[in-house]
């Protein structure tokens, strides 16, 4: 149901990218297509003024929103203004992101800047100006610590409280540009204020521009010009010109101001906090490369370089269209920790504070976090050697300060307010851990070590879930509203996190305790584990595995860990296939395992049934096929000649066939049989030598009755070898014994070996 605005046909000479037809990842076109162009929104640039009659600007330029001074060299301001509101349908330079917004300029930078000048600029016409964009700040020299003084601070608070008819002025601020001088924008009180939306920059490649500073108060990012191999931001310039030399975060801030103008057009009732919530929800890490991307406990990706990522104009206007105001802001000032701690060089001071989130005071009770401010007082001989981290109860670590190589100041920090946005949406109550490192960058006197004098937390946020009052995340089932009352009293499904729910089912949760499945119609269902065929990504979402996988670690077909029925895993790869590929066999744990080397088909690791070409199967193994008279030497992997007596062989001492005139005896070729062998005459053996029976020493044929000589201790008797003991017989023995052998023979017990030996003569006699 968006407004049918006449679509722009872009014909800018600077946009020759026919591949993406000038689509930028900030989805500006998407917002335009929904009919938002910044109409009825007023933006002012706090800078050195704007050139009033630039052909691209004068249609949207409104002098009433300008400070009283005449404009002398408004170069910087003109460039910024062009990005915001260069009018459409011009043929000079560019089109502004909010090309129907009204634009003013406050000339404040090319004279003395004082607290009063800043305050006057920041509080100019707050009932008419919606967005103030500032592309300036304290020196980015890596050693300055400065911020808004008394009046400027009052101007911020006044604008937030009463500006835009009570909805709050929007202050957009360029984060630091002192990357090269190792500056850290936490030392810039403007970007560290919760009232300013601190904007970072990235080049089109997504890489960090050289000038960029890191800090935990950065909220979001827009493009700017980067390295010389990146495409440039093009904007209006003095003397009706066009330029591509505008770079740095000062190009990013007005861009962000213009995108916010589109969102304000979509929903003029948005408060200053609504705008920040929408930015947090819609900014995306995308292709921005930062070493420290992490997902906080509320599921938002955030980094010190780019905040919550690249702004998305289309997503913002969509959210704005159906946004419901977030609950009132609560401020919880936790009691200060005044225990003095010494900060020794090369050591860390760790202080843990158990925050309650002001549970005892309903008007200040904070459960769901927005900004977290840490007020710190430290004395130190060289401030630049300090670095400070804060870890939230959910484990999200924010770097509040990094070492600053050029900061030799001995002033330390006096009640300086560091701010982080990284805990957005997390729970406030719990243990907060402050760590202060002292890492001297050069020799330093040890006489006066640093001291942590005091630190305290100021928690900003809400006591109810910011989106729980039937907010936009509610499942889009039309009948749901009728079916469920606005406030669902519970109980929630066991898979819902503590954030609550608006219905009993697992798909009514606000956030999931463990993992969630997302369906095509954009609804979500919380699950304790991802079902089979799904894997969990780093955002706790269950994603589909490849069709052949039962379980997997990624969506590619080579990321299976187990297979669906009918499929088997291939050993050494995480791929599931239905048929056993060549060179593999199916083992008893249903895995296709690799056959031995050179084996084409096998039934087990050591049982090859078919060899690869050039190999021959021998004893279930594949060996190189060698010429007759040679054999394959496994060690040397070559064919070597058999013994000269062998016609064929499988090893140097393993003849399988003998040369003419030789007899095969026990894998050897001999001229004559050796003892314990006899020459068999069977045709099938072709005269092969066989081994005699084990009882014979020499024999004339097979079996135990063809012996021709016996081993020692045995006598040859009728072709058989028997143990040579003195035989007892009936005659010689005493009557009693003689009669014994007779009885043995009579009772036919001679076949018993012991009795046979005893009465060998009697037993051997016939009859």
């Amino acid at each position, binding site marked *: 149901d968006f407004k049918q605005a006449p679509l722009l046909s872009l014909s800018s000479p600077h946009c020759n990218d026919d591949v993406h037809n000038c689509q930028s990842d900030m989805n500006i076109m998407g917002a335009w297509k929904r009919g938002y162009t910044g109409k009825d929104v007023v933006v002012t640039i706090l800078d050195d003024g704007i050139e009033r009659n630039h052909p691209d600007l004068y249609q949207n330029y409104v002098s009433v929103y300008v400070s009283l001074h005449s404009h002398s060299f408004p170069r910087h301001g003109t460039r910024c203004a062009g990005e915001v509101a260069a009018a459409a349908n011009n043929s000079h330079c560019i089109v502004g992101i909010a090309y129907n917004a009204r634009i003013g300029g406050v000339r404040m930078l090319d004279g003395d800047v004082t607290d*009063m000048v800043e*305050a*006057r600029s920041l*509080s100019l016409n707050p009932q008419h100006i919606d967005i103030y964009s500032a592309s300036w*700040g304290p020196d980015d020299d890596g050693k300055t610590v*400065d911020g808004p003084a008394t*009046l400027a601070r009052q101007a911020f608070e006044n604008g937030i409280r009463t500006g835009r008819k009570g909805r709050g002025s929007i202050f957009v601020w360029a984060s630091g*540009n002192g990357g090269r001088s190792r500056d850290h924008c936490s030392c810039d009180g403007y970007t560290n204020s919760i009232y300013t939306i601190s904007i970072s920059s990235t080049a089109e490649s997504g890489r960090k521009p050289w000038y960029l500073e890191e800090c935990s108060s950065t909220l979001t990012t827009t493009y700017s010009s980067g390295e010389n191999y990146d495409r440039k931001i093009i904007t209006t310039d003095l003397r009706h010109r066009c330029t591509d030399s505008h770079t*740095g975060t000062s190009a990013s801030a007005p861009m962000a101001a213009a995108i916010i103008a589109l969102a304000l057009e979509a929903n003029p009732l948005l408060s200053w906090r609504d705008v920040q919530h929408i930015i947090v929800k819609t900014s995306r890490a995308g292709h921005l490369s930062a070493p420290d991307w992490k997902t906080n406990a509320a599921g938002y990706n955030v980094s010190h370089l780019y905040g919550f990522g690249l702004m998305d104009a289309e997503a913002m206007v969509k959210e704005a269209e159906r946004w419901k105001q977030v609950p009132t802001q609560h401020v919880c000032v936790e009691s200060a920790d005044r225990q003095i701690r010494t900060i020794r060089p090369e050591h860390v001071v760790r202080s843990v504070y158990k925050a309650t989130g002001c549970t005892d005071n309903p008007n200040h009770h904070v459960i769901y976090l927005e900004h977290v401010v840490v007020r710190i007082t430290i004395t130190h001989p060289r401030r630049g050697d300090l670095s400070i981290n804060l870890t939230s109860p959910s484990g999200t670590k924010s770097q509040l300060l990094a070492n600053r190589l050029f900061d030799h100041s001995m002033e330390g920090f006096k009640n300086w307010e560091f701010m982080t946005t990284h805990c957005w949406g997390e729970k406030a109550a719990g243990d907060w851990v402050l760590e202060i490192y002292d890492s001297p960058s050069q020799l330093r006197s040890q006489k006066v070590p640093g001291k942590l004098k005091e630190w305290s937390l100021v928690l900003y946020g809400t006591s109810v879930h910011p989106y729980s009052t039937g907010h936009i995340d509610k499942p889009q089932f039309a009948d749901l509203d009728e079916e469920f009352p606005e406030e669902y009293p519970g109980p929630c499904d066991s898979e819902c996190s503590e954030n609550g729910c608006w219905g009993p089912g697992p798909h009514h949760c606000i956030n999931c305790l463990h993992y969630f499945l997302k369906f095509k119609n954009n609804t979500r269902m919380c699950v304790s584990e991802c079902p089979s065929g799904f894997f969990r990504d780093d955002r706790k979402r269950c994603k589909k595995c490849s069709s052949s996988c039962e379980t997997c670690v990624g969506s590619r077909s080579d990321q299976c860990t187990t297979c669906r029925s009918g499929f088997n895993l291939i050993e050494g790869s995480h791929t599931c296939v239905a048929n056993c590929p060549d060179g593999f066999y199916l083992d008893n744990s249903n895995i296709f395992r690799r056959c031995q080397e050179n084996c084409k088909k096998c039934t087990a690791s050591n049982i090859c049934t078919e060899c690869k070409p050039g190999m021959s199967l021998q004893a279930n193994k594949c060996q190189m096929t060698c010429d007759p008279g040679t054999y394959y030497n496994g060690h040397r992997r070559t064919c070597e000649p058999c013994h000269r007596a062998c016609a064929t062989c499988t090893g140097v001492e393993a003849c399988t066939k003998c040369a003419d005139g030789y007899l095969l005896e026990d894998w050897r070729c001999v001229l004559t049989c050796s003892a314990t062998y006899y020459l068999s005459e069977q045709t099938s053996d072709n005269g092969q030598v066989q081994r005699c029976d084990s009882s014979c020493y020499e024999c004339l044929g097979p079996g135990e009755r063809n012996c021709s000589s016996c081993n020692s201790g045995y006598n040859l008797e009728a072709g058989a070898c028997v143990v040579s003991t003195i035989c007892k017989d009936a005659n010689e023995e005493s009557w009693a014994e003689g009669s014994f052998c007779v009885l043995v023979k009579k009772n036919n017990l001679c076949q018993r070996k012991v009795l046979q030996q005893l009465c060998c003569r009697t037993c051997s006699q016939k009859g």
Partner: protein
Amino acid sequence: PPCKARIYTNHWAVRIAGGPEVADRIAEKYGYRNMGQIGDLRDHYHFFHSRTIKRSTLSSRGRHSFISMEPKVEWIQQQVVKRRIKR
């Protein structure tokens, strides 16, 4: 490190309750000129003193300093130059 000298100007920010007329009267009494309200900050006025040094490393002292003793003057600050850089 070289200490950063503060540079005082001949402009003041003053908070006076009672409206612009009261502010005008007090300004005139001590030789200032009321340049008007500071932006949208109610009761905050920009006073300018043409007879004091335009830029100095010392804060200005003189008869005009007694303005701070006026009961209606709730707060006063001589303006110091701040170094601000275009990014």
